[in-house]
Structure formats: C-alpha cells, structure tokens
C-alpha cells in the first residue's frame, strides 16, 4: 500500500512531525517573538515588571469580555451584542452608583446584563433563529437605550461616582492592579467551568457535534441560554469595571470590545488546542493584542499601524491554524490506511 521508499519519505515525515507539534504553539511562539522584538527595541522600558503589569492591566477588561464570548463560541453561537452590553453596563453603573450602595449597584447592573443575555438565549433557542441577527438586533436596541440614558447629561456620565469604587479601577494589591485579579479570577472560573465540569464539557459537545449531543440526550437549549447569560454578564462586568477605571461612561465606550473580543477569541482558537475555542487560547490572544498595543505605544507607532498589524496577524494565525488542521487530518488518514484496518464510515441515508 504505502511503499516506504526511505530517504524522501523519512524527511517528509519528520517535517510533518515538527509542524504538527510546533503548529500548536505557533501563536505562543509569535507572542514570545513580539516580546523579544519590543524588548530589543526599547530595552529599558519594555521588559520591566511595571510595564508587563501595564500590559496586563490594559487588557484585563478585554480579557473578561472575550472570555464570556468564548463560551458562546464554544457553543457555536455568535454574540454580537457584547459591545453594546458593555456600554450599557458602564452607563447604568455610572448612573446608579452615585445613588446607591456600590455593591447593590454593581450587582444590579450585572443582573440586568445577565437578563439581556437571557433574552438573547431564549429568542435564539426557542425560535431557532440565527444568533448573528438576533444579537445584532438587541445590540441596536441597547445602543439606542444607552444614548437615551446619557442624553440628559450631555452624553457623558461622570459625576457622583463614589471614590471607593474608583479605587477598584485604579488601585492595586501588592503592586498588582485589582483589575488583573478580576481578569484572572474570571479566566480561572471559566476555564474550570469549560474543562472540569459536566456543564462545560457538554457545551463543547453541543458545539462540536450537535447531532451526537442530541442523540445522547443533552439539552442544547439550556446550555446555550447559559452561554448567552454568561457572555452578557461578563460584558456587563466589563462595563462596570470600565467606569471604575475611567471614572466616566459614554455611549460608545464599549464599542471596540465587540470586534476586539472576536479577534482575540479567534486568535485563541489558533493556539494550542487548535480549531477549538478555549479560555487559555483567548488569554494568549489577549496577550498578543496587549503586547502589540503596549509595544507600539512605547515605540510611538501610530494607532492605524496597530490596526493593520492586528488584522494581518489574525489572518496569518488563522490561516496557519487551518493548514495545521488539514495536515493533521491528512496524516491521520494516512496512518489509518497504513494500519490496513480502514473501513468505510457507515453509509447513512437509510430512510
């Protein structure tokens, strides 16, 4: 069947092995390269503890929002409303906190955002409609609401926010900003959820093979609703923390989180567990974006160049991930053929 001709075949197989093992860590490698490049270009400034912390600080909110989105993506659903929900969270927080106890205010805001996720989930699962369009619709509604809510005060809410609350956004513990604790906490909890709980594993099953999950009696509906509730809540938390950090809220404050979260999540799906969305990958993607942003700022590189680089890296990462997966598949097929026990996958189609 496959004639081992030696020589060329051996070289080819070794090459495949390298690509297969290495492909998974391509983005991590890229991250390290970025680090190296920036460290070399700005030796005294970039690679300091303070700057590294700075990177984490800048990406902490994106990490939280993207983590919530990752759960939806695991379930094979799109949540386009996260940007608008983040804005809503910020705007509501800025509006309520001056008048209530901060804890109640924060919980209330997150509850509202969770409720929006619930509405999204209910519409999408009950009526079996496209998540893309539904969340597009809710996003539009929420954007309008945020504009209305802030219209009375000249579009920016900033007065009366309690100092204690602002401390959350700017303070630190043992020199590590609180925001980083939030991000790490969220990432750890979601990582554990997706990888070590029944609920999380079933989410992967539903997203990976809806038929198999359905035949096994798993209720996709409940899991998807949970996914949207999570992404809504975390987007809301992002908004709340935005206010803590910036001390204000205005109706476009959450916009960039939409596309950035998707970018970061997809970068994550090109890392380590290639082809699957996962929290660790999302973290790597977030770090890449943060490193680029930080490095470019230090180098005085203008924002537009960052955008271009961001887009290019996304395409490069996802392309190579695609190649990697095709290669893996081809190698597996060949191995199966070689062992000689390859049967035909059961022909379906019986009525």
């Amino acid at each position, binding site marked *: 069947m496959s004639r081992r001709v030696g020589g060329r075949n051996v070289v080819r197989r070794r090459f495949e092995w390298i690509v297969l093992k290495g492909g998974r860590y391509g983005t991590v490698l890229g991250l390290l390269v970025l680090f190296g490049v920036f460290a070399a270009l700005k030796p005294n400034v970039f690679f300091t503890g303070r700057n590294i912390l700075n990177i984490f600080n800048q990406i902490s909110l994106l990490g939280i929002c993207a983590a919530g989105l990752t759960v939806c993506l695991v379930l094979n659903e799109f949540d386009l409303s996260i940007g608008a929900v983040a804005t809503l969270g910020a705007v509501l927080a800025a509006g309520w906190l001056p008048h209530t106890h901060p804890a109640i205010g924060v919980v209330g805001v997150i509850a509202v955002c969770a409720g929006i996720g619930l509405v999204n989930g209910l519409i999408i699962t009950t009526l079996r409609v496209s998540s893309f369009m539904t969340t597009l619709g809710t996003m539009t509604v929420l954007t309008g609401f945020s504009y209305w809510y802030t219209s009375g005060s000249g579009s920016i809410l900033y007065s009366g926010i309690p100092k204690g609350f602002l401390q959350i956004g700017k303070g630190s513990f043992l020199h590590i900003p609180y925001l980083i604790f939030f991000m790490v906490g969220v990432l750890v909890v979601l990582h554990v959820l997706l990888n070590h709980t029944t609920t999380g594993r079933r989410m992967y099953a539903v997203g990976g*093979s809806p038929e198999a999950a359905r035949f096994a*009696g798993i209720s996709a509906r409940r899991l998807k609703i949970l996914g949207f509730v999570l992404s809504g809540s975390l987007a809301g938390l992002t908004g709340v923390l935005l206010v803590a950090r910036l001390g204000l809220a205005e109706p476009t404050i959450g916009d960039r989180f939409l596309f950035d979260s998707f970018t970061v999540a997809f970068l994550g799906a090109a890392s380590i567990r290639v082809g699957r969305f996962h929290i660790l990958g999302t973290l790597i993607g977030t770090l890449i974006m943060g490193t680029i942003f930080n490095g470019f700022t230090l180098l005085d590189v203008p924002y537009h160049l960052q955008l271009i680089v961001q887009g290019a890296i996304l395409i490069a990462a996802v392309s190579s991930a695609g190649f990697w997966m095709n290669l893996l598949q081809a190698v597996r097929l060949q191995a199966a053929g070689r062992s000689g*026990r390859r049967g*035909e996958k*059961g022909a379906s189609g*019986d*009525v």
Partner: protein
Amino acid sequence: MGTTGPEPLRLEMRGITKTFPGTVACEEIDFDLRRGEIHALVGQNGAGKSTLIKILAGIHPRDAGEILIEGKPVEHLSPRIAHDLGMRFIHQELNLVPQFNVAENIVLGDPYPLRKPTRLIDWRGLNRHVGGILENLNIPIDPRRSVQSLTVAEQWMVAIARALYSKGNVLVMDEPTSSLARDDVRELFALVKSLAAKGTSIVYISHRLEEIFELAERVTVLKDSRKVLTTEVASLTLGELVRHLVGGRLQELFPTIEEGRTLGDPVLEVSDLSATDGRPSDLSFVVRGREVLGVTGLLGAGHNELADLLFGVRGRVASGRIALAGTAYAPRNARHAVSRGVALVPAERRSQGVVGEMPLWENVILAHLRRFLIDPVTRIVDRKRARRSTGEQMKALQIVATGPDQEVRNLSGGNQQKVVLAKWLLESPRLLILSEPTRGIDVSAKAEIYALVRELADRGSGILFISTEAEELAGVCDRVLVLRDGRLVEELPREALTAHRIMEACYGE
C-alpha cells in the same frame, strides 16, 4: 431464551407511521420485543428500519401509532427520555464528538464521575472506569486517545462501549458488523449473547442474513415501509428469508438482457489503480461501451470509494493508470471529470445529488449551464429552452412532479434520483458511474431506473454500476467485479451472475 406467554413484553410498537416530505418512511409498522430476546430487523435500503429505530430513540416524532414500554404507554419520546427508559442505541452514523477523546465520548450524556469536595470532574476516575469497561469488552483502546485518530472499526467499538456504559434494558444496534473484522464480529456475537442471557433485549439490524441465523431468535422483515413478517428464525431458511425481503417480483423488476450483444470500444481502462488510502488497491478492469459493469463488495471494500475516485471528488490516486476512451485520465475534480464525459450519480442523493431548494429545471441544467445561455456575453439563461429540455427529460424518465418548477426536495426519493439522472443525460455521458442508485427508492421507481440503465447502455455509454444489493447487480449488469479490502477477488461473468453467487463472493467463504 425468551419465552412466549403471559410475560409482559419489554417493548411494543403498534401501527407506527411516519412520513417525510415526499416519502412515506413507515406505514403501520408493528414491532415487539421480549425480555432477553435477540430480535433481528431486516429490510432493504429504504424499507424503514432506520426511521423506526430513530422514532424509538426519540429523534423523530411519530405521526401515528403507540409505543409501550413494559406495558406502559409512552406519549412523548426524546433522546433523554428514551435513555431514562433504559434504551440504548448504536446508530449507523455513530455520532461521536470528534473533538473529544474516547473516554468523554463513552460518557457522553451520562454524568461524569466527580471529585468529592470540589464537584469537579474526576478525570483519573473517569479514565479508570472507562478503561475498566473497555477491558471487560476486550477493546484494546486507550481511553485518552482522540477519537479522530481511530479507525472506523475502533470508533464502532467506542460506540458499543458508550451504549453499554450505563445499564440498559434494550440495546439497538444498526449495522454493527459493517466495519468490523472477522474476529471482532465473533467477539461481538459472544457479547450480544451474554447480554441477552442476562436479560437485555437486543434489536439487531443487519444486511448480513447469515448473522441473523447465527444470532437471532426472531426476525421481523420490513419491505417498502411496511412490516411483512415477524417469525421465529428457526422456522425459516435463508432462501425463504431472501424471498420475503425481495419479493417474488424479481422477474418483473429487471429488464431482459439480450444474449450475445456486441460491445463497443473500451470506454474506461484501469490498470493497477491504487488510492492513497488503499481503497482501491492494484485494481485493473475495463468498461466497454454498451456494457454495464457492476462493482460490489461488503461495506468498506472500496467499491464506493472507486466511484468518488474516478469522478475526482474524493481520494487521490497513488499509483496506476486510467484511460478514458484511449486518452490518459487523471481525475482532478468534478469539473474536469465532466469535461471528459464522465458523470456520477452519487450515493448520497440528498447531500450530494440535488439542491433541494431549487426547482426541478434548475437542477436538471446545473451540470451543463453553458448549453442554455441566450448568449455567451450576458450569460443569461434561456429559461424557455431549459424548461423545454426539462420537460422532455421528465417525460423520457417518467418523473412524477407537478411541473418543472417544483422544488426537488418535495419529490419522492425515486423521482429525485431521476432528476439526478436527467441532469447527466442532457449530454450522453461517455462513462456513467452509478453509486448505490436505488437506495431508498420504491420498487416501481427501481424498475424504471434499471430499464433506463440498460437503455443508456444500448445507446453506447459505458456504465459502472456500483451497489451492495446483490439482486439488482445480478439483474442489471453484464459482469460483476467483487472487491474485498480494496482488491479484486472475483469477476463474475454473465453466465454465473446470480444474487447468491455474488453474496458468496463477497463473503469469501
């Protein structure tokens, strides 16, 4: 070891009816199952077996009929409810989650073992437990392996392990042995028998009739969406069973093939053809004009792969030569194949053959759009001419539809298949490859298709008829090649062509 008498039946299905748009899948089917019994369910492709099982599994809702479990009626079924009622299924499509490893696939749908204080998944415990089950079943697979790296036979064994993971009362297996090697089949039989001895009821669906005789106590035969017969296996012979399956209409089904016809020049010449996955392997044969060459084998033998390989849609040629009407032919993709006069009626009609949402006439012209343009610049389609040609095809092939505008997904399976044929017959193909052409099609449509195939051959095309149904191969083909493990093991000439001989050659006894 089941006994008849006042003992309550474990499962009863009465008058089950189910229709899909365009087809009746099940019509008033009765089926019952005793405790600890092995009950075989047989029928040709499209007879309704898989649909009946999917109804039982809660995947399709039934249109009419009752289902009783241990005497209690069940109104509403879902996969979860079926599972809770103790029913376990191994469907033909396996349904494994490709991203998961073996252990997670086996536990899919059942609760994971959790660690005491944290209530998180106890992975080691899971692997241990699953490993134990795999060992008991004599399945030498590491539970941590990714399911995508397994061969189909190994995947099947994982599916069995999943079905047996939690204790059930009813086990339904749909075509279990199609991907298993001989030793594994023996193991499977021993397992099935021991399960039945312990009280589990088994529904065993298979095309391989000898297995029925070796394994089952009772057999139910489905034909054309109806139940034909339920009886003790001991009271039947193989021949009688076959007759019930196919019906005494064998003679009328097939067109007469005149003896001593002159064949045309070679249309397809294949020498030492091997594909990269070994299906086929060192295959050589010739198809001449005006000839219908059958190719068959057990599932996995390589005959279906041959169709896709020759048409350029799947698989890659590793070595060997192919010539089409004397000129070298390297199938690159479907478009290339079509330009060389090759046509394929694919095995999966709904997913590969027709675009269901499009009307009939658009499906028919799809492969030869160039012929129906008003002018080459604007590339606007000449609707009138296209519909006229479609009308002609509809008449010639006796396609039953409300008109050329009817959406193809609303046609019956037989008519859909005729639409696929019509698509290729717009320009007489040099080589027509048919892959499982009558699967899921009612008898009268089958007869029409057989007649069409012979007619096409008479007009000069070379026809490669790939099928796993021995009767139709015997009835329609001039010669039949039998493959096993990708290799040619026997060639049956016209004189030796009977369904029995074909099945013999497939099993290689």
